[in-house]
């Protein structure tokens, strides 16, 4: 019975994610695309909760929905790009659809057939706590963690240097229009 409910909930989440995902790549409005991406990301967070990964789910909500999508919307505002309705696709649409369909066919076929015989179940019945994740991050994965910290710092500095306006050559500030 619990199995049935799991599958029903999964089907609803998957349907929402698939519909929102297809709208992300087909809608003609950039802001709508960002908001459909929010729906897909929230669906992914719900899937993480289904998979007993609560910490990743909340990090997903905080970082992706709270930070990345907001950053995207700020980027749209700052570029003052034509965000209304418009044709944002290039002329590769047909071949892109073919490539994507072929990729989906091949990967899903491989995955379904690789795990067809074995009826694997959830390895855990209780969720992974933040305590477990924290212990693992600061013991086994401490070197990648530090590398990610340096990467984030480098990205921060790099983004500021790339996007700031008054950084001319040889200290001569460009005219601020």
């Amino acid at each position, binding site marked *: 019975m619990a199995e049935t409910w799991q*599958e029903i909930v*999964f089907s609803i989440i*998957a349907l929402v*994610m*698939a519909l929102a*995902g297809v709208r*992300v*790549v087909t809608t003609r409005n*950039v802001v709508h*695309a960002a908001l459909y991406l929010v729906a*897909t*990301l929230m669906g992914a967070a719900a*899937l*993480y909760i289904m*998979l007993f*990964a609560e*910490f*990743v789910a909340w990090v*997903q909500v905080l*970082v992706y929905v709270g930070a990345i999508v907001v*950053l*995207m919307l700020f*980027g749209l505002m700052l*570029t*003052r*790009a034509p965000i209304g309705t418009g044709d*944002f*696709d290039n002329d*590769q*649409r047909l*071949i*892109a659809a073919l490539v*994507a*369909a072929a*990729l*989906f066919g091949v*990967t*899903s076929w491989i*995955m379904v057939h690789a795990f*067809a015989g074995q009826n*694997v*179940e*959830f*390895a*855990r019945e209780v969720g*992974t706590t933040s305590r*477990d*994740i924290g212990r693992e991050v600061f013991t086994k*994965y401490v070197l990648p*963690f530090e590398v*990610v910290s340096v*990467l984030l710092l*480098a*990205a*921060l500095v*790099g*983004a500021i240097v*790339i*996007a700031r*306006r008054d950084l001319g050559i040889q200290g001569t500030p460009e005219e601020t229009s």
Partner: protein
Amino acid sequence: MPISYFLVLSSLLFAFGVYGVLARANAVMVLLSIELMLNAVNINLVAFSAFFTADGVGGQVFALFVIAVAAAEVGIGLAIVILLFRNRQTVDVDDMSYMKW
């Protein structure tokens, strides 16, 4: 429920992302599609670790790293898009072919 449900959903999202990267002309749309692909990867990582490991921690840690790298990537990507718009008054990736051989 079998793991293939999660894997098929994630490959579907990845295929949407591939289509978006290939078919979109707006640079911000391309960044959104890349986020879609990174999310598909994260779903795979968390699903595999929940189904196949005893404690389910390793895949979640990797998913967290992917999220952090995605945050760095989108920051740099948007900075580049803003710089391109400031210099060229367009965010169309098809117009950004000056360095193409």
